[in-house]
């Protein structure tokens, strides 16, 4: 998958004997596009409308200002902050 900046965004390699899963291809597009324009990441098996993760590059103070209604509970690795679903609703998702 190639972005508008002509950079490689995703590489999926399948053997000839296994057909691809295009649901996953579309799911990745759904994640790639909002995460390219918002400082968020999407967790495992994420689908549009579900909670996203505020990117670890965002400081705690920035996160509280940008997403005042988010759940700022730190998860296992300290810097990982989970937002409420309203954040993902702001994103251009399908």
């Amino acid at each position, binding site marked *: 998958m*190639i*972005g*508008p900046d002509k*950079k*490689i965004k995703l590489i999926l390699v399948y053997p000839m004997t296994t057909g691809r899963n295009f649901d996953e291809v579309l799911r990745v597009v759904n994640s790639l*596009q909002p995460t390219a324009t918002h400082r968020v990441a999407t967790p495992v098996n994420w689908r549009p409308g579900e909670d996203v993760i505020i990117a670890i590059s965002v400081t705690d103070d920035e996160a509280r200002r940008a997403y005042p209604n988010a759940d700022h509970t730190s998860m296992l690795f300290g810097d990982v902050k989970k937002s409420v679903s309203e954040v993902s609703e702001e994103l251009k998702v399908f």
Partner: protein
Amino acid sequence: MTLRLDDLAPDFEAQTTHGPIRVHQWIGESWAVLFSHPKNYTPVCTTELGYTACIKHEFERRAVKIIGLSVDPAAQHAGWARDIAATQGVAPNYPLIGDVDLAVAKLYDMLPASASGDSGAPRCCRQSDCCAMSS
């Protein structure tokens, strides 16, 4: 050459079923999916190309262009398109690149380790039964 995430996608010119393209120009401001298949009439890819045609609108609504690639000449994709339409219910409605000299496949590191690198390398033979099974 090994391509990695965030590398610049190599630009190239190629013949396609929709005419000659330069890929960066073709992508424009869109996103793009470039997917390869080993050879025309390979059964797994027949299902993939048909399904991709079925969900092309899902890519379009996300501003994603799709383009296929195989080592067969672009002019020979038409016969396969008829097979895809017959077995999958829809023909490819997006361009297919004819990468006869493997230039793009090599540029994007799409060849398996077992491939000899020439277009005569063994690949799936045509098995129409397999195509029919997936229709």
